[in-house]
Every structure is written in C-alpha cells, then in structure tokens.
C-alpha cells in the first residue's frame, strides 16, 4: 500500500487449501490444510518485497502460486493488471515466462545428468521465441558471465560446483527468459555465511542491471531486511504485518513480529545482558485447525476475549490512524502497540576496515 511505483503484481484474497480426504472408494473431504488463507499484497516495479515467517506459515505456497506452479483455491493475482489465475494454454505460458523462480536447495533443483549449459538453456526449449537455436550457446555463456561464473564451464555437470556456484547456476536459469519478476524462495539459506554474502550481492546487482522486481522469501530476518524495500510477516497462512523495512524492524506493532524480531540472535555479545527477549510459549497451531478470531491468539500474551471472536483486519490500526509516523502501517492486531525490540548496535563498523 505504500508502494510508490506502479504495481507489477497485485495479490488479493489469495487462498490455497489442500483437501484432506478419507476413504478409498467413496472419497469424501474431511478437512483442509489451509496453507494460504487470505493474503493480500502488491509488488511495485523494481521493488523487493520480503516475506518472512516460520516453517509452515505458507510462504513457500505463496511462491508457488505466484509462479503458477499451483492453482489458488480463491483470490486473484494481477500481473500488470491481468489476472493470471484464470489463464490457461498459450496465455499462461507467456505469463510464466515473465515470473521466474529461484529455488532454495541448489543440490536438488539442478538435474545432475544435465550439463550446466543444458540447464541454463532449457528455458529456451520451452520458449524458443526468446532465443533462436543458433544463438543459445552464446546466450548461456553470457548468462554465466553475468552471474559470475566462468563461461567456459558450460559443459560441466552440477556436481563439479560448490553450493554457492550452484545457486548462481539456478539464478542464471531464472534470468534466461528475461523475466520481470523473480520469486526467490530461501535462495541463500543453504549457503555458508561467506558465500551467502556473495549471492546476496549478486541478487542486488542483477536487480539494478535488469530492472527486476523481487519477491524474496526467507526465514532469516537479517537477510530479508538487507535486501527488501518492504517486508510482510506471515503467520499461519496470513500476512499479519506489512510495511517498509524500517517500519517493520524499528517500529513493529504486531506482537508476533515483535516476538520474532526479539528472538533473532544478534552478533553482538554486548547485547546479551540488556536485550529484551519475548519467548513465545507453545508451538504454531496446525493449519488444519486454525484458531478462531486472531490466529496468533493461542500464543499471544496480549490475547483477550475479543481476539477469539473477531478476526483482526490487516490495516493501519485505529491507534495510529491519525499519526503519520513509521508506526502507522498495516498490522492485523486488535491491540497493536509499538515496541522496539531490535537493539541498535552503534559500535560495529559496516564493512571491512
């Protein structure tokens, strides 16, 4: 809602339920895994939207829906004004070209029997209009060069590369069709710290170079802050708070966001003593049996009767509606209140030497 550029993606009321069935001969539905249960957001052109949340919150399902790898149960995804959830055949194929995905695990997302050249060039088999046959090898080598790999490596196999290099191959494949949107699902979480920084920098550079819009999905809140313009926090299939990075990290108003941020270990031993920690009790409820009202109430220290009755809307909370400060952003809590949980470390330099 605070996107300043024209939106390239507009997601409204997105729902994905996976049915649970019983019986072999007469299948009947006995329930549903409500993986995504009403998600709204927009993505501006050239913008990076980070989506954070813990396992099982539905963030990866959102990624699959955006890339048309799954069909939503309800809701719409507008890509440049056109609802892609209703497309099929040739029109769907054309849209898929424009929204590409980078996967988490660089070990299982590359076919071990294909050469790097074939992996990166495979999108051209499906969309031959992008690159004529004779031109493909050159294009693939260009892509390898762009992501920082030696173009001579086209005939090598994935096992000859390290984790970070494989992730670069996955990114090159994602770029092959010159998409406008890249959905990256945990692209750096399988990598070592020193290599992670290289890949994050690469993604940053590519965004500027190719005018890309990113949906960046991760569970590491520090990485998400680093790369995102806006951040949405998901819990049990819904976005509970969304705003610009400083609004979410420095002025969170939803208790779940506050707990999540306060739990992140900060690389500063001085922060140990004077840091406030919100330790949540219990575990995330099952997505087959979502609590009534506010879905976070079973773990929330602020929960009252109203939270069990009324579903809080994702909007600027009443308390901040008239204010124009950074606390005035969308937060789905009846009792939203600002609380600073990320300690500002002054000491550390930012960068070498």
């Amino acid at each position: 809602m605070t996107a300043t550029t024209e939106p390239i993606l507009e997601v409204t009321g997105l729902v994905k339920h996976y049915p649970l069935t019983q019986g072999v001969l007469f299948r009947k539905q006995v329930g549903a895994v409500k993986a995504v249960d009403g998600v709204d957001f927009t993505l501006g052109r050239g913008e990076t939207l980070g989506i954070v949340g813990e396992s099982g919150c539905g963030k990866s399902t959102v990624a699959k829906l955006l890339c048309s790898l799954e069909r939503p149960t309800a809701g719409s995804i507008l890509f440049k004004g056109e609802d892609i959830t209703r497309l099929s055949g040739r029109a769907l194929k054309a849209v898929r070209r424009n929204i590409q995905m980078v996967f988490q695990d660089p070990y299982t997302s590359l076919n071990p029997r294909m050469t790097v050249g074939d992996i990166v060039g495979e999108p051209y088999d499906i969309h031959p209009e992008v690159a004529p046959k004779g031109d493909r090898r050159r294009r693939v080598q260009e892509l390898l060069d762009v992501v920082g790999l030696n173009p001579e490596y086209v005939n090598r196999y994935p096992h000859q590369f390290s984790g970070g290099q494989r992730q670069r191959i996955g990114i090159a494949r994602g770029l092959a069709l010159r998409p406008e949107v890249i959905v990256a699902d945990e692209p750096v979480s399988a990598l070592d710290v020193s290599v992670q920084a290289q890949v994050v920098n690469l993604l940053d550079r590519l965004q500027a170079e190719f005018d890309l819009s990113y949906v960046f999905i991760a569970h590491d809140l520090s990485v998400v802050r680093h790369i995102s313009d806006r951040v949405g926090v998901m819990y049990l299939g819904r976005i509970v708070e969304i705003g610009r990075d400083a609004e979410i990290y420095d002025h969170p108003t939803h208790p779940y966001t506050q707990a999540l941020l306060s739990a992140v270990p900060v690389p500063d031993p001085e922060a140990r003593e004077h840091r406030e920690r919100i330790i949540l009790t219990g575990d995330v409820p099952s997505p087959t049996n979502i609590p009534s009202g506010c879905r976070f109430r079973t773990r929330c220290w602020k929960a009252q009767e109203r939270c069990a009755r009324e579903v809080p809307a994702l909007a600027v909370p009443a308390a901040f509606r008239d204010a124009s400060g950074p606390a005035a952003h969308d937060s789905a809590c009846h009792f939203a209140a600002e609380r600073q949980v990320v300690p500002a470390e002054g000491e550390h330099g930012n960068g070498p030497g």
Partner: protein
Amino acid sequence: MLLEVRDLHVEFRTRDGVAHAVNGVSYEVDAGETLAVLGESGSGKSVTAQAVMGILDMPPGRITGGRILFQGRDLLKLREEERRKVRGAGMAMIFQDALSALNPVISVGDQLGEMFVVHRGMSKKDARARAVELMERVRIPAAAQRVRDYPHQFSGGMRQRIMIAMALALEPALVIADEPTTALDVTVQAQVMDLLAELQREYRMGLILITHDLGVVADVADRIAVMYAGKIVESAPVHDLYKAPAHPYTRGLLDSIPRLDQKGQELYAIKGLPPNLMDIPPGCSFHPRCPMARDVCRTDEPPLYEVSGVRGSACHFWRECLDDRDH
C-alpha cells in the same frame, strides 16, 4: 580442566585421495564453561567433536595424531568398553536433526529410560518414572501421557528438547551440541537455547557448542574458537573477538553478515571458496582468499600466535588486523 584436546589430527581416506579434515586442533573446556566452535561446512568442527565423542566413522576416518584428555584420562588410549562408559555418563551429544537421531519405532519414554536401564541398572518401571521427570524438566506439556508417544508425534522444537533431555539424563560433565538449533525456527530456537543455557548453569556442565551462526555464539558462549580448513585460526573470549577480531577470516565473517538493525549497503563478501581438504594451500590455508596476504603467507604456515594471555590468532599479521578494527 574438564576436557583438553591436544594437537588432534584426523584424516579420511577416500577413493580420490586423503582428505585432511582436522590438522592440529587444540582446545580446552572447563566445567560450567561454554566454548563455541565456529566454522563453515568442511572446516572440521563436527569431525573434531566426533573424535572427542568417539563416534567417528573409522574407517574411512583415522585419528593420526594428538591426545584427548577428559578428566585427566587420554580417551584415545581407552578400550572400547571403557569408552562406552564415558559416553552417556561422562559426556553426551546433542545432534542437529532430532528426527533422524531418535529411533522412530521406539517410544520416547523407552528411549529416555534405556539410559537408566543400561548405565544405572534401574528397573523398567523406575526408568519410565525418570523419563517422565526428564520430560517435565525440559517442559514437555502433559509428559506423563506423552511418554508413550513416538518421535514423529512431536513438533521439531519438542523433539529437540527430548534430545536435550536424553543428553542430560545421566548428568554428564560435558555436553557437545552440534548445531542444536539450526533446523529450528527462530522463536523455537530461542526457547531451546534458553533451556540449554539454564540446564547448563544448573548442572555446571562444560558445553561445546558447534555452530556456524555468529548470532547464537554471541548470545551464549564464553569463549570462541574459529575453525578454517581443519585448524583453529582464532581463539578468544567472546567479547574480545566481536569487538576486535585478530584474524582476517573472522573479520570477514563478521563483516559479511547482514544486520538486523539497519539496511546495509553492499555486503562485504570473502572472495573465493573454502579450500579442498585434499589439496589445502601451502603456507596459511586462508591466503588465497585473504585481503592482507603477502609473500610470507604463501610459504610459511602461521602458528597460533599469542595475542594476549587469553587469546590467540593464526595470522602473521594479527597486529595489523587488530589495529584495522580500531579505526
């Protein structure tokens, strides 16, 4: 001193050659102390721990040198049955992935109770009662009912707490935790680390925390040993190290993590890749990636220089590295 590892060497013989996984590691842990061993994949941090614990796969692994003194006894000289008694009662290990570390076809109560039956000679009934106590101790709700449940019936955080319960069952003097929270979500990670720290204080255990997460280290460790290519490159009290690293690799790691409290510019990235353990570069093994490398680094292997009474750095130019940070 509770545990002293002295100049440990471990190698793996594989079809393609000999991988030098641990190349002269020394560290010590005292009762009640937390030592964090930090390193990236392939740095030898887990292999060292497996050698201490006596669970290294041999072959292909081989301990080619060094001593592991636990409460004064050299573990490498013990016979297997004596070693078994040390494991469990003297030292215990917590693994990263609880689902694969627990037996899926035995109830958690029986797995916890087995410790008491085998090591303490208790009856099954008493062992079951102790299992319930332990589960309550690690805050598993409704422990008396859930003691009959199987590992898959618990959430990831609860499984990890059951593993902690199992490790602490016999009140060992030393616990080795190998990436205990890496597979967990942050809110659950905080619960589990808190519990581990609390129990450690209570039992005055020595704790070796093996991790790649600089944030977790800053939260719980007293001392830290940074490993690279099978060696300790820096060892220091945790406050000193974060304030001013004395090795360029440590400095690179600290600078390359994105920050939670501000949106950064381009991240500092250590160039290149960790070395192949079958072909470790001569001289300082970090020199191909080091921004400070000079000729001497390519030929002379740096010893662990004494930086102060309590810290060491395996860098020829540790003074410059420290000074750099001050400005």
